[in-house]
């Protein structure tokens, strides 16, 4: 499967990773190589096979829907690149 530069640009956009225009052809080529490798899967007959959901058959445990933790605003903000007045700060989102 060959990936063109427009597709590479679209994927970069979806992944929220800035890729400079001049790097797109090389990136598209790398994607194509990896996807070619993945194409081998087309040889496999998967008719009637269920996609794996969980590698070890287990039922997820249930618990009461109650608050078990919290009240640690300072700790949560302690690693933020920009935190002000008890909040994460980001560039203006709404005009």
């Amino acid at each position, binding site marked *: 499967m060959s*990936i063109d530069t427009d*597709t*590479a640009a679209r*994927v*970069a956009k*979806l*992944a*929220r*990773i*800035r*890729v400079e225009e001049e790097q797109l052809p090389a*990136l598209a080529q*790398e*994607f194509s*190589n*990896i*996807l070619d*490798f*993945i*194409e*081998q*899967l*087309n*040889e*496999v007959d*998967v008719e009637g*096979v*269920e*996609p*794996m*959901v*969980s*590698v*070890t058959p*287990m039922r*997820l*445990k249930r*618990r009461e829907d109650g608050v078990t933790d919290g009240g*640690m605003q300072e*700790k*949560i903000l*302690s*690693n*933020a*690149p*920009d935190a002000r007045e008890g909040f*994460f700060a*980001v*560039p*203006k*989102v709404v005009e």
Partner: protein
Amino acid sequence: MSELTKMKVAGARDALRAGEVTSVELTEACLSAIEEAGALNAYVHKTPESALEQARAADARIKAGDAPAMCGIPMGIKDLFCTRGVASQAASRILEGFRPEYESTVTGQLFDAGAVMLGKLNMDEFAMGSSNETSTYGNAVNPWRRGNDDAQLTPGGSSGGSAAAVAADLCLAATGTDTGGSIRQPAAFTGITGIKPTYGRCSRWGIVAFASSLDQAGPMTKDVRDAAIVLQAMCGHDPKDSTSADLPVPDFEAMLTGDIRGKTIGIPKEYRLDGMPDEIEQLWADGTAMLKDAGAKIVDISLPHAKYALPTYYVVAPAEASSNLARYDGVRYGYRAKLEQGDGITEMYEKTRAEGFGHEVQRRVMIGTYVLSAGFYDAYYNKARKVRTLIKRDFEEAFAAGVEAILTPATPSAAFGLGEVTDEDPVQMYLNDVFTVTVNLAGLPGIAVPAGVDRTGLPLGLQLIGRPWEEGDLLNTAYALEQAAGFVAKPEKWW
């Protein structure tokens, strides 16, 4: 002093309990070995002060007669584990400056048992790599060399720093994590032992996530007995990880009898690759003969979907990574790019992720984004999940037919030179995991044991794969193999 760093966990535990050595002495010996070993670039955040504090506390516990097996044992911790108050960066620029306010369950259990942390260990960025060359800290270097050739070799990856540190006696044991082979391949490249337990054995809570359905933590140690002891301390049920298994953990060390008479060992024909080096072929044959001599029954088995494991992995793992790594947005922790006048939140995300993630991580996040995107989800992601079902079924059928463990090579080659496998051809690097990745896809336990050397004197490893939750039995088979192989070589110190 340097003799102390060569101790194994079992020997150190016994010596500590007998009062023949103190944890402070062991810790100081390791810390000075680390200071001398800058050339290996194994430790990327050193914590000598807190290590000595932990060592003093461990000595007090031992004196008081309260000494679990790991009490006072100096360890290195892979940078992927969140450790409270200590930089935990997953070897990525995007987590620069991140100091977790919490402790991962695995490291918390080790510290509760009295283990001492010497520092954080180098690795591939977000555990994505097989050579430790994608690290933001630079390459870790293998303490082994090809004879007198001073070319620098990779210690493997992603747990390259862990492997180098254990092999060079810069700790008594280390933690690793394994998503496609990241414990077993570096263990094989450095002549040490590494086990990836059954998916769900070790809690993933507090370990930076790469591919959640594949990631498992495990120990990297100087021998099989140590692997049993350290694994024991690392695993167990954790309510904070919903995939953690609520099963009792047996006494792994007590199961090491070395008696494997009557055990059925499978040899999968699909693992015989075209172009595999003769030495790997020979090692595998030798290992098979050793298990047979020890009384095991050897049977040929078929795992027909094994050849599709790598392409399956390179859909599933990037897909999960693209989702897990979406959290690195420059808002809550770590790195945020400098913004230009007028840049909005989208520019902040895009610049932060472009500058914060290295090339391989970006590539995998984007591949994952692609295979999950509208129109391709069924063709790639669902297809891969179906093939994964078949890969697991192959193993189930072998086990149902009476096979108790499977013997394979651990890697398709010995350690290669740093820079030898180029970045332009990622698939070439991915082939390193050809023997290990099936085990992650099937959620099984797998262990790499050093079993010989190649013609240049580099270590080679064999892999044993066990049935789910049968780590004890697997460790015992590995123990028998270890005894028969008698691998005792150590790298000559040049650093």
